[in-house]
């Protein structure tokens, strides 16, 4: 029989104190300070009075900022859907690979994680810019095609015009998908890997095609993995700040960029704190939704 923690209180406390203390001092206390700021008022360049005002929240829900929240939700949503579409087949392939290959494939997924986000984003800039590798490759193909056309007696294609791949919303989404794909693949993989294979075999034996087996058997069984994958992709994507800053154009501003500017350039910590907490509430809603889905699927299973 399992031993309840109540029977070994001292041991439990000894183990629990360091992480709980860590959580309190480095997470809850700073968070509480920021929360308090969000009800404060600027009284000077470096002084804030905690007056309990709701003015910061009132300003944060003005149409201007709600529109930016909405835009961030849409960008994060598109990123998450793309990650799911790309990540699901990848996770499925890894789950069904031989054990040796599996380790290598997982390593390949994790490898970019070991590089700093800023370095990866700058690498992406080097790939996507007009004098970048994508355009170099396309130019090479274009010139060869052009040479071939002259060879067979047709008009050559003319000068290659480099594609503009950077500094727009598409570049931001490419960057976000690139950065967040591992967040999607890993929980999907762990859900798919644990799945009872005999259920799939049964489905195939009973005459369902591959597509149908995936949609009717694999996806429902992997639902909790999909839900947590969506959640841990969506939340950081919603708060993305570096990617829209570096890859985005003049209309790629996301809410985290606005928050950053409140804490720095605008020197308006109370308003920045209010915006941060609105973002946090959105995150809580997303977590609650995920827990709800999880509970529902557990009840069914």
């Amino acid at each position, binding site marked *: 029989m399992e031993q309840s923690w109540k029977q070994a209180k001292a041991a439990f406390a000894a183990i629990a104190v360091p992480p709980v203390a860590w959580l309190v001092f480095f997470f809850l206390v700073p968070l509480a300070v920021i929360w308090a700021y969000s009800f404060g008022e*600027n009284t000077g*360049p470096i002084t804030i009075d905690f007056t309990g005002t709701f003015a910061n929240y009132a300003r944060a829900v003005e149409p*201007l900022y709600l529109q930016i929240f909405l835009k961030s939700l849409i960008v994060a949503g598109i990123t998450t859907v793309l990650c799911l579409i790309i990540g699901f087949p990848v996770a499925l392939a890894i789950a069904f690979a031989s054990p040796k290959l599996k380790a290598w494939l997982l390593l390949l997924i994790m490898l970019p994680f070991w590089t700093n986000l*800023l370095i990866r984003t700058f690498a992406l800039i080097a790939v996507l*810019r007009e004098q970048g590798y994508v355009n170099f490759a396309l130019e090479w193909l274009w010139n060869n095609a052009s040479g071939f056309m002259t060879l067979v007696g047709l008009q050559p294609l003319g000068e290659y015009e480099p594609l503009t791949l950077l500094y727009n919303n598409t570049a931001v989404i490419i960057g976000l998908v690139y950065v967040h794909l591992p967040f999607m693949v890993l929980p999907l993989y762990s859900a798919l890997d644990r799945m009872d294979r005999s259920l799939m075999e049964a489905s195939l034996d009973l005459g369902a095609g591959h597509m149908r087996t995936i949609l009717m058997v694999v996806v429902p069984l992997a639902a909790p993995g999909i839900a947590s994958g969506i959640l841990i992709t969506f939340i950081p994507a919603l708060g993305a700040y570096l990617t829209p800053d*570096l890859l985005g154009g003049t209309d790629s501003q996301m809410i985290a960029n606005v928050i950053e500017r*409140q804490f*720095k350039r605008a020197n308006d910590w109370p308003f920045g704190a209010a915006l941060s907490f609105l973002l946090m509430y959105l995150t809580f809603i997303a977590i609650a939704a995920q827990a709800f889905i999880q509970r529902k699927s557990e009840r069914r299973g």
Partner: protein
Amino acid sequence: MAKGKYLTGASRRSLLKQFGAAAIGISFAGGLSACGGSGGGGSTVNFYNWDTYIGPTTLDDFNAATGTSVNMSLFATNDELFARLRAGNPGFDVIVPSNEFVTRMAQAQMIQELDHSLIPNMSNLLPEFQDAAFDPGRRYSMPYTWLVLGIGYRKSAMPAGFVPNSWRYLFDSPQFTQRIAVLSESADLIRLCAKYQGISLNGIPDANLTSIEQMLIRQKQHIKAFHEDDGQDLLASGEIDIVLEYNGDMAQLMSAEGGDQFDFVVPTEGTLINSDCLCIPTGAPNVAGAHAFINYLLDAEAGKKITEEIQYPTPNAAVAALMGADYQNNPVIFPPADIMARSEYGAFEGDDRARLYEEIFTRISAA
């Protein structure tokens, strides 16, 4: 001068540097608390500076001359400097805020008054830098450099003989559509638009703020990116042809290999002048050492070594006299006098103003 020296270390504020500065800042914070308690001051000066903003041997030379060693750590923006010191001085002795932030930090009592008797080299400064509107009587700051914003461009992308000598080409014209990048600093952007409209960049009336906002929203479709002070990198990589940048950054790019395909012009409407200043933050552990270090940086020979490296205009007459004609007559570093006469320093107009500018920029970006 060694060509290509600046190719990689191009901007004092470029983003890769920002990353480096953050990393160094973090490791330095530990060092500060370690030496702050036991050292008791006297032998170390903690210097908080921009990146690529000091001579290659300056710190060692100071150590050799005085026996005081200098710990330098780096920041990338004035906002970063301000945010770092906002909650109290973590142990810095000398910092380098720009003019507006000198006023702001003096108002917030984040910097302390200087003892001019300990800075005899102040007499090396050009007369116009002996005093400053943003710091009357130079009570809090000594000028280190000055700089102006202007237009950097690729010569081959211009029509023959054309010089983009008006802010119009950045803010109010489709001529270089999608080949433009402007700085993402709200206040700088709005103030330069005011210059374009022919009014002072300080105390901009509300009506002009509205028309500036509308103008930039109109122009947005032609602007490719709001850059984070890495505009010269965008220019060098071929992404854009015309960019809002600081003269020093463009001078560095132009003195690098292949730099002759670029040029820099300060528009005839006039521009925004900045000056980076040496200050002693409140609570500095080594005030005497800080004064000695500031005095050393204003020395003619020491200043010459710095200026040769960083290529920014110097406010120091003794240094300018030692520099070669290459530097003294460089129109990028020293824009023509008539344009300078139409240019202004941006005054610190209070935090509410900064917030207003920031909200305008947010609206422009969201539009």
